[in-house]
């Protein structure tokens, strides 16, 4: 009879096991938020590609040039300031003029115009006998040839803002622009994440964006006097848009749970109906008769940050807490992971599913209101193909279309990956057709990475 082996090998295998325990906390992070590294990589890549000479403009640049002049010429400086008539350049010139006179120098003339205006001004100066000691220009006006053609200005020392090198992509204005444009997609993607986590899909969100914008704008135009509407009317109007979409989402949920229709079909139907309804209500045209206060949500800023971004951050914070810290969030994952086990564990499946589709509708409605506020109109053509971009964000963010696996913050990362790629391609002058090809490839790569992460294409389900 063979003898039974001793336990010496068991201890050895335990030692082997402990080696893996340090990676234990890192692993889930990489699993859930691995796409963050992709996003950071993209940011780095586009920063390198768009690293160019920057010409400062505006108030800061104006004050900076004023200080340069004072340093070299002191209070006896007499300055001729020339720039274009754009808002930025006016800010530049007027800030410089104020700064110079504050510091005791005299400003002979401020020109905001084209080269012709500059020549007139120079001629007037020389006729009146005033000889400037310094010429203040910016990057654009410094290249005008009028200064070399006139004896008055030919030998003048010219001052312009100091240039520096910085990636176009990483300029604050660009980053805020990217975030602002992504906000609407990202907000809708929260609801889509929930829906996909339950193993469903919501194709109706794009049409609901249009419906919400039309419903809100229509109410404001027809019942609140359009541009003359008050703040109360704006709030009610926005709520009407959002609630309309929430009801549509609830309809999705009821059809899916009570009537047991597949989510794909139900939401496809609602997508067509909502779009048709939006066109019908709006009479096929855009509705621009909106009050100023309506534009605050999509176009205004708070603390220097555009409101849509703040709204997006707030909603993601709430969604994160809901999905990771509440019973409802746990139920959503449970339903997507194994609906039968969830039901037999006492999870109220139907109310949860209806709730999830209502949230998705509600956020699509909110997205519609923000978008119409941003674009200052209600329009049935808004939101076209949004559902695809939003689904792409969710999938790129690592949520499994089979349900039960994924994170809301992953979706935020996914939305930004897509936005950064689009913006980066715009900055590097890649045309729209090629952009589409790249985005499609990105989507496929993301899903492929996701399957690799789960053990490759050869691995079957673990028993």
């Amino acid at each position: 009879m063979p003898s039974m082996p001793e336990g010496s090998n068991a201890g050895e295998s335990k030692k082997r096991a402990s080696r893996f325990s340090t990676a234990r906390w890192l692993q889930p992070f990489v699993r859930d938020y691995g796409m963050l590294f992709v996003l950071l990589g993209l940011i780095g890549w586009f920063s390198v590609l768009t690293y160019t000479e920057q010409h400062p403009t505006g108030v800061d640049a104006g004050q900076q040039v004023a200080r340069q002049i004072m340093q070299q010429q002191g209070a006896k400086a007499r300055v001729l300031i020339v720039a274009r008539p754009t808002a930025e350049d006016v800010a530049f010139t007027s800030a410089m003029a104020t700064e110079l006179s504050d510091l005791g120098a005299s400003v002979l003339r401020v020109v905001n115009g084209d080269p012709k205006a500059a020549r007139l001004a120079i001629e007037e100066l020389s006729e009146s006998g005033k000889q400037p000691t310094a010429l203040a220009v910016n990057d654009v006006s410094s290249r005008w040839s009028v200064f070399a053609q006139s004896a008055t200005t030919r030998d003048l020392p010219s001052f312009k803002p100091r240039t520096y090198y910085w990636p176009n992509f990483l300029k604050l204005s660009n980053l805020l622009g990217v975030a602002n444009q992504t906000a609407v997609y990202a907000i809708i993607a929260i609801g889509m994440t929930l829906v996909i986590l339950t193993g469903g899909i919501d194709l109706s969100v794009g049409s609901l964006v249009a419906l919400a914008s039309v419903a809100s704008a229509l109410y404001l135009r027809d019942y609140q006097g359009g541009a003359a509407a008050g703040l109360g009317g704006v709030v009610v109007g926005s709520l009407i848009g959002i609630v309309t979409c929430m009801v549509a989402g609830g309809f999705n949920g009821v059809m899916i749970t009570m009537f047991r229709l597949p989510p794909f079909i139900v939401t496809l139907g609602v997508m067509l109906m909502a779009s048709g309804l939006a066109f019908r209500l709006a009479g096929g045209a855009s509705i621009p008769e909106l009050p100023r206060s309506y534009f605050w949500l999509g176009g205004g800023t708070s603390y220097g940050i555009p409101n849509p971004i703040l709204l997006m951050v707030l909603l993601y914070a709430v969604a994160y807490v809901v999905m990771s810290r509440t019973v409802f969030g746990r139920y959503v994952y449970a339903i997507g992971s194994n609906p039968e086990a969830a039901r037999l564990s006492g999870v109220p499946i139907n109310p949860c599913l209806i709730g999830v589709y209502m949230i998705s509708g509600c956020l699509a409605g909110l997205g519609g209101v923000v978008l119409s506020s941003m674009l200052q109109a209600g329009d049935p053509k808004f939101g076209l193909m949004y559902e695809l971009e939003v689904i792409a964000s969710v999938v790129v963010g690592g949520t499994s279309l089979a349900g039960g696996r994924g994170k809301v913050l992953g979706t935020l990362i996914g939305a930004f990956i897509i936005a950064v790629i689009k913006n980066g391609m715009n900055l590097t002058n890649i045309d729209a057709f090629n952009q589409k090809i790249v985005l499609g490839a990105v989507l496929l790569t993301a899903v492929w990475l996701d399957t690799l992460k789960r053990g490759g294409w050869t691995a079957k389900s673990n028993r």
Partner: protein
Amino acid sequence: MPDSLTQQMAPQPLLKMCEVSKSFPGVQALYQVQLTVQRGEIHALLGENGAGKSTLIKILGGVHQPDCGTIEIDGRAVAFSSPRAALDAGIGIIYQEFNLAPTLTATENLFLGQERSTWGFLQRRREHDRAQKFFARLGVPIPLDVPCSELSVAQQQIVEIAKALSREARLLVMDEPTTALTPAEVDRLMDVIGELRAQGLGVIYISHRLDEIQRIADQATILRDGQCVGTLKRSEMNRQTIIEWMVGRQIENEFPKQATVLGATRLEVKNLCRGVAVRDVSFHVRAGEVLGITGLVGAGRTETARLIFGADRRDEGSIHLDGRTLKIRNPRDAIRAGICLLTEDRKHQGLMLDRSVQENFGLPNLKEFSIGGFLCQRHERIAWSGYRDQLQIKVPHAETLATHLSGGNQQKVVLAKWLQANASVVMFDEPTRGIDVGAKYEIYLLVNQLAQAGKAIIVISSELPEVLGISDRILVMHDGRISGELLEPRQATQQQIMQLAVG
């Protein structure tokens, strides 16, 4: 002449696995395992859940690659880089969950991936004839033109075996082939396996049912904690030795039944009906009582439990707990009322495989682990660790996904979640199916504990020794009705039950 003589004297074994080791992150699954199978031999592979049987089989099937060690087939060293390579080498594996396309017919499944065709058109007649030949070889007639989903489990299994044979398998591996079969079907499967042995195939047979092993196996290799404990010849195989080798300690009594004081009637059901599956079922369970319900597969046992639990809607009937009439429309109502059901199919009905064990544990108990809809994950974790220690659940940490646990540990997670729910009626549906002797014993102890705590227990089981061993009273079902009641399981026999079960 001397050459052929030596070949006859010492033939190369069909399969020889030498010092095979395999580790996964955090686990040494196999450590220097040996396994030799001759032609025409039925070799049983035994071990508790998590002992490494599945890993060994997956290495043999090319799903996993061993870290070290050699595999020889007919004396030639082989290395399987993929399941395909193993298949080509003549190894046919029939997993516990079948790999059949449910909407295709038996014939279509049989030739899936190796269709006979001319210019892309199927030779349906030839396939049909060949399929018939295969099933004739197995001695089992199978309806060839019916979707596989409409075949019985036993028939599907025969299709799987035929599929392996059609690929010229010389070594057949069967993982728990009898778990879902009725006794008659088991007998027929044994005949089929015996026939394959006579035809010179090697068979590796994995099962927890020791009587089956003793019946057909020529040799038995026993694994424990990923290591080979040893190989028994047919003459050495007795129940006691096998169990000792599997669990590494002695078990004196397989069924540790303790007498409990029975209290008042807790659960009473009257006239439960649902279609033809459950017809007019009435019974009661007292506090502290373990009621065994048995019968053949399809007799309506599981369906009855599902009606009580609200998982299916009942046509008629009422459910009373402690004298109160309960309104149960869905499982949520049942759980709230204090009734829980441990389903027989834990992978599809009991667990969320791709969620963490802690989440699985918490799911029915979130009311307890939350305040105003917000989770208290700390409470949940503390409660979970309590059960983890009490039930000795082997799991690296609370975030481990349920899919990564062995069958016995998965069952314990399901147990823990329902223990936490602290129900007054606990229904177990096949609680020990597919789990090993040691874990079975622990579950029996737990059933005792629950009974002693004054709960009403219902155990549905097809294993007659188990039903006889742990119940205070036994109901036998046949064709949706209760066909008999045994008040004294101590004095009852398996024959008595079978007579009631066949109607």
